């Protein structure tokens, strides 16, 4: 349903020559995760290369080092080994000069790696290494915090800068195998708390101050680290519950991929999930309510549904009134006749003729049917006579027919009337 088009469409919008290569490639988990690894390969004492060179080396290492930080559990050991590396990386990155050009590139790159960070954290957690996760995330956050300048990448950067989540509180789902989780994780990155980010913003140069200012102002509202998605921009309460309601994985999140040209805001994603669920159910209801195939639109459909429900309820009320009018027939010692075993064991159907009423009664007693007293039976006869005068001949033919097969339970009846007559025969 959700095509695999990337949520990284903003990447394409961005005018990044460097990034085009990344964007062109398939977003595999492996190479994205291994973002950290090429950095690791730098020995600590290496003097900082220029930003372009670094990017080249990044790219280079990316392609070659595809399996470095493997998500899958079959390479658990190797990934374990890589867990400690990001710490190194952090130290490495601390040495990078805050070059403006580099900052911009790194900013774009960090957005790009946002999804990977989320998954990396997730994978870290899945490996059970929360400590290193926190450390790793913290250190990378330094750099990400530094490089959030350009207005081009306003939206995605906002996502990127919120990568960092508090240690141990990341609840990103562990569906590492689904590449469909990309957009989702990207969206999830956004709502991950950026407390580190807030801490680091003071380190920034002044050029980003106002841009950051508004961001931090919004973020300070976000105190929660949970998946509640308390968003500054939309009332996400309903979307939260909508999102939490869908339960596909063990922590209950449905993987969504943002479609092309649509917002990758986690809230809008959740809203979309919810809206689609509702429309799916509306379609289902449309089949249910008669005469609603031509109706389109939620509002009209809802009105139709409401009318239908109201009409059904009115029908029930009307029928109950009618039943109360004919109820005197039912009043006669119903309980004695409507014994439980009588219901479960279908007694032989009463024959068509009233004269034959009495002999079958003895049959009833033999079969364990409750023995009604004579007075009630007479009343019953009255009821039965009244019934027979209605002319249920066709039914009575069936009744006689059923009389021969005394032990068959009337499981399926085609005509509703016959079914009722058989049950009524218990009563009357």
């Amino acid at each position, binding site marked *: 349903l959700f095509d695999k088009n990337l949520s990284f469409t903003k990447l394409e919008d961005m005018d990044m020559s460097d990034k085009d290569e990344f964007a062109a490639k398939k977003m595999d988990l492996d190479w994205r995760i291994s973002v950290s690894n090429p950095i690791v390969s730098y020995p600590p004492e290496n003097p900082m290369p220029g930003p372009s060179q670094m990017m080249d080396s990044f790219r280079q290492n990316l392609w070659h080092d595809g399996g470095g930080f493997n998500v899958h559990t079959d390479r658990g050991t190797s990934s374990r080994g890589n867990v400690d590396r990001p710490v190194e990386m952090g130290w490495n990155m601390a040495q990078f000069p805050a070059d403006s050009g580099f900052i911009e590139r790194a900013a774009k790159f960090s957005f790009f790696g946002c999804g990977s960070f989320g998954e990396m954290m997730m994978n870290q957690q899945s490996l059970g290494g929360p400590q290193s996760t926190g450390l790793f995330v913290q250190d990378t956050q330094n750099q990400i915090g530094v490089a959030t300048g350009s207005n081009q990448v306003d939206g995605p950067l906002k996502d990127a800068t919120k990568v960092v989540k508090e240690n141990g509180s990341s609840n990103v789902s562990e569906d590492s195998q689904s590449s469909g989780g990309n957009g989702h994780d990207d969206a999830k990155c956004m709502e991950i708390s950026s407390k580190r980010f807030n801490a680091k913003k003071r380190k920034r140069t002044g050029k980003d101050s106002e841009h950051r200012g508004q961001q931090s102002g919004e973020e300070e509202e976000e105190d929660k680290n949970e998946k509640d998605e308390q968003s500054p921009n939309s*009332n996400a*309460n*309903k979307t*939260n*519950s*909508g999102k*939490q*309601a869908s339960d596909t994985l063990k922590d209950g999140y449905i993987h969504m991929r943002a479609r092309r040209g649509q917002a990758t805001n986690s809230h809008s994603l959740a809203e979309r999930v*919810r809206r689609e*669920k*509702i429309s*799916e*159910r*509306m379609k*289902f*209801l449309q089949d*249910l*309510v008669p005469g609603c195939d031509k109706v389109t639109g*939620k*509002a009209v459909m*809802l*009105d139709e*549904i*409401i009318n239908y*429900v109201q009409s*059904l309820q009115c*029908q*029930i*009320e009307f*029928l*109950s*009134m*009618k*039943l*109360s*009018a*004919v*109820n*005197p*027939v*039912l*009043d*006669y010692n*119903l*309980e004695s006749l*409507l014994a439980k075993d009588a*219901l479960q064991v279908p007694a032989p159907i009463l024959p068509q003729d009233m004269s034959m009423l009495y002999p079958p009664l003895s049959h009833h007693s033999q079969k364990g049917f409750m023995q009604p007293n004579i007075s009630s039976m007479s009343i019953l006869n009255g009821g039965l006579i*009244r*019934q027979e005068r*209605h*002319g249920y001949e066709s039914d009575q033919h069936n009744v006689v027919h059923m009389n021969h097969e005394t032990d068959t339970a*009337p*499981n399926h009846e085609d005509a*509703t*009337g016959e*079914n*009722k007559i058989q*049950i*009524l025969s218990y*009563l009357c």
Partner: protein
Amino acid sequence: MASSDKTINTDVPEKDVFAIHFLQSLSNLTTQNPFNSPDTTNYRARKIKKAAYVSMAKAAGGSSRLWSRALLGRAAKENNKIVRFARRKRKVTWKISSKRRSDQRAPEATDRLRNLVPGGGTMETSKLMEETAHYIKCLSMQVKVMQCLVDGLSPK
């Protein structure tokens, strides 16, 4: 009339189940009110209607459906009895908080639906739709049963 959807399950038992439950409830009704008929037919009609709803809820949902639980709970409260079901995980908090905020909204169609479907006050909209679908099916089944009864019993 039982049907099921791929993701949404709205199975409804057969007519017999409804009929049996309804007749049992009717018999309980008549034993409660002895042979001397009560004051007005209106009173009896209301009783029968209540019995119809309760039997429908029992037959169709039991405690696996939100609306049936709400119905049975409501009926039990009227009789001053308490019925307790197994507590499901309820995400009530969000819904309630959002409800309070939007109290001033004009009665929307969904709100009207909530008023109609029992127990619809604290349901999500998607859940409400599911419950409505099942409720509609059960209602129509109950209507059929009652119609047959009336036809069978009505004097000509």
